């Protein structure tokens, strides 16, 4: 973990991006896209979560080991969703 000086500018930029993305989520919910509504909402949410993890939680500046700990649960989340969908999508 090395010391870094991204400073307040980065934090404010990330915060602004999060606000914009929230606005996008709200706006899209008024447009009728069928199944794509869910896809867009999840996509925006994922980008926001990544921004928070990368900058606010400093993941961007961490070692490979910490990255491993962050990514493993995501793999298991994908696994449980994929496994469950293989059931519900084909019933």
């Amino acid at each position: 973990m090395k010391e870094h000086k991204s400073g307040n500018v980065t934090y404010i930029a990330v915060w602004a991006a999060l606000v914009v993305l929230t606005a996008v989520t709200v706006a899209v919910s008024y447009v009728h896209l069928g199944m794509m509504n869910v896809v867009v909402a999840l996509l925006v949410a994922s980008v926001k979560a990544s921004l928070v993890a990368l900058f606010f939680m400093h993941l961007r500046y961490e070692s490979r080991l910490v990255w491993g700990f962050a990514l493993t649960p995501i793999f298991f989340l994908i696994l449980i969703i994929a496994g469950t969908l293989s059931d519900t999508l084909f019933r």
Partner: protein
Amino acid sequence: MKETTLNGEQPPNGDASPRGYLEAKGFWSWAYTLDHKRIGVMYLYTTLFFFLLGGVFALLIRIKLMFPGQYIFTNQTYNVLFTMHGALMIFLFIIPAIPSGLGNFFIPMHIGARDVAFPRLNLLSYWVFVAGIVVILFSLIRPMDTGWTFYTPYSARTAADVTTLSFGVFLIGMSSILTGLNFLVTIHKLRAPGMTWHRMPLFIWSMYATSIIQVLATPVVGITFLLLAMERVLGVGFFDPAKGGDPILFQHFFWFYSHPVVYVMILPAMGIISEIVPAFSRKPIFGYNAIAYSSVAIAVFGFFVWGHHMFVTGMSSTAAIIFSLLTYSVAIPTAIKVFNWIATMYKGSITFESPMLYALTFIFLFVVGGLTGMFLGALGADIHVHDTYFIVAHFHYTMVGGTVMGLLAGLHYWFPKMTGRMLSEKMARPAWLLMFIGFNVTFFTQFILGFEGMPRRYAEYPAQYQALNIVSTVGSWILAAGILIMFANFVHGLFRGPPAPPNPWKALSLEWQTGSPPPTENYPEIPTVTDWPYGYAGKQT
């Protein structure tokens, strides 16, 4: 491996006391202890108590099942009895007994460390475990009747205290996560100088794989129970179809944890067998790498197969086919282990002391349990025997024939090290024989009953199945007699057993190179390791 003894000296007893880590006396010396050995012993006492209690429930269930109709208990009492038998045995005995009990004691000793990485966390995990037990006992005020699997929609509706019991299991799960985390860090960070990954005893590899599962799978069941509690208390419809929920979703979540957790039960037992078989065959272990990696492979593959519990619940046939195929993949690393143990024994100088008897019993019974698991992984066969006594027999062959026999092998193997006293072989052998006969009489009959179609879980059954049920019940008495003699041997050994030498089995792993019982710090000096622990007969293969 001679070099790995402490500076080549005769194993000394460390700090002068012949009682080693058992020197301090009194309640608080145990309740506040940070010594991994004492915490392990406390876990063993606690879990073995629930083994006996769960066993009493089992005997009561078997007595009722001698008669097809209602007998002794009301059917509701029967439901409570088999639920408590399952819940206590699974959550308070089989899951924690080997990892938290023997694992706590022997992981630091095996890798040449003085303690686990986080001793305070270790003590916390024990007391969280006890807190979980207290909560579970509270739930007996309105006792559970759902079976140990808590299936919705019934568990969401019953008046029984599902919420309290699931909160108790939540705490037990938390304790399990803390222990697994502690072990992972310990194995990574505290190995003695020279203890490379490929010089670690295979018990450590299996405990490493076990800990991975504990850390990654247990949170899922914790969250599942939280969702169930929200459904019961707040009326949120996660699993209730009337509110847009899906009752099968509960089973997906539940088995996402509960299938991997069968490997939390069986992998540590496999690790014990991998220690005992070479020591009592006086031969180097065959296929060290294969056994080590297959432990990790079982842990990983085990996450991909949970759907095989749901073939007849209305799951899509696409999912059923996928999960059936994946289930077969777990058989491969399991078979690798069995073949390597047999190859280790081939042309060895085998002796049949009690640890080896239990280890051989493990291999034999576990192969029966594992192969019948393959029947159940096959979609067609599973539909025929699902929810019959075939399943009951299958998982008792893996859990009792496997895990419990592995635990008993370990207890007989390490009793001299843990207590500083020897067990009586004269008592251990008849106890083993009774258990072996009793177990097979009890459960092999259940394979036949299941194949003939006797459904599981019901208190009553058609009269045509009575004869074999009586045989099975008599078997449970033989099994119980064996267990009683074994416990009598434990108690006798604990107080009256002759003093144990440091290394009664002439085994090569590190824990035998220090005193029996070990000193508080395990080793007067941290040993330097120059070889693997399986150099029996002086050659490596």
